[in-house]
């Protein structure tokens, strides 16, 4: 009997099924908690899911690699989802075209402000160089951020973690900050979330308002381009 159970356990912990199911169940629980407790942004479904999964894996002694073998099917969909952002962008194209100049200026300033403030804060607080370099591209979507991180000598997997935490911080506290600086325009609110906090910021913006969502998607895409092009160049200028 216990030998059977052991074999089932061995099978399950090595097959993609367990990791995939765990990911979806944990996210559903996260969504449920988020809805039940009044959609407070602090109860971010991603945050709840990550805590549940990390907890489950630690308790059962399954390592991250094994888990990711299953969860990679979800992870893979980031690519097609990025492509799909063309659709809200197209739906809002008239708005986008009218505000093109504002978009470009806000993008360049916002992108630089996010990256430089991140680097400066790690440096001031005594972080190591690897952490600084891994932190620099954290505002853009993970496939881009990991690529840039590798180019400039950071740790791509550490960058991925910073990217996700950035998104969770923005989704949880972004509304509060935007109210604090008294920005009311949905286009500006969405764009700020997308530029500073990629897909998770965009997901949050889409939850709230279609215009904000489209501008967030645009901000995420444009900052992905800007960071992929500018950050390696900036790095070579500073560190040679």
């Amino acid at each position, binding site marked *: 009997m216990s030998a059977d159970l052991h074999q089932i356990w061995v099978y399950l912990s090595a097959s993609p099924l367990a990791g995939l199911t765990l990911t979806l169940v944990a996210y559903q629980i996260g969504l449920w908690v988020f809805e039940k407790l009044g959609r407070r942004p602090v109860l971010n479904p991603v945050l709840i899911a990550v805590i549940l999964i990390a907890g489950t894996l630690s308790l059962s002694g399954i390592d*991250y690699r094994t888990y990711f073998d299953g969860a990679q099917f979800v992870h893979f969909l980031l690519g097609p989802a990025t492509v799909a952002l063309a659709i809200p962008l197209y739906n809002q194209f008239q708005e986008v075209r009218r505000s093109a100049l504002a978009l470009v200026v806000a993008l360049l300033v916002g992108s630089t402000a996010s990256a430089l403030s991140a680097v400066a804060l790690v440096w001031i607080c005594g972080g190591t160089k690897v952490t600084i370099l891994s932190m620099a591209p954290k505002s853009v979507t993970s496939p881009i951020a990991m690529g840039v991180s590798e180019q400039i000598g950071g740790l791509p997997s550490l960058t991925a973690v910073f990217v996700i935490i950035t998104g969770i911080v923005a989704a949880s506290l972004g509304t509060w900050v935007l109210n604090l600086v008294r920005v009311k*325009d949905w286009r500006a609110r969405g764009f700020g*979330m997308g530029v*500073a906090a990629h897909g998770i910021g965009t997901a949050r913006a889409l939850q709230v308002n279609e215009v904000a969502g489209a501008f967030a998607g645009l901000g995420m895409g444009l900052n992905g381009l800007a960071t992929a092009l500018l950050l390696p160049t900036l790095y070579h200028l500073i560190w040679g």
Partner: protein
Amino acid sequence: MLGTLTLLLLCQLAGELAARLLHLPVPGPVLGMLLLFAGLLLRGGVPAAIQDTAGGLLRHLSLLFVPAGVGVMVHVSRLETEALPIVVALFGSTLFGIAVTAKLMAFLLSRGDPRLEEEQPAGSSAKGDRT
């Protein structure tokens, strides 16, 4: 649904190929997005099927970040030893980035068209549910 998924994957594949063949520093999916966008412009509209499937995928966009987020497990020791710089930088720069981008954008937009300030749904909706 199947057609849309195929289209999204084809755009991504074309984007990946273009990025590699032309040695562009831009990731494939972003090029794929631009490609699909150009296609929609040429066609002059989004077919309902694409609207639905893409909408469904994007509604659960944040789910797709969960697997990478669990990677935090692998870096626990670094996160512990450098907790202060990491926490300060992530919170500080993210909130600073949002504020700077949105404030500047709002300022530029209101300069471009003074009417827009009043058109926005100012303090009307519930505060907590704004992005």
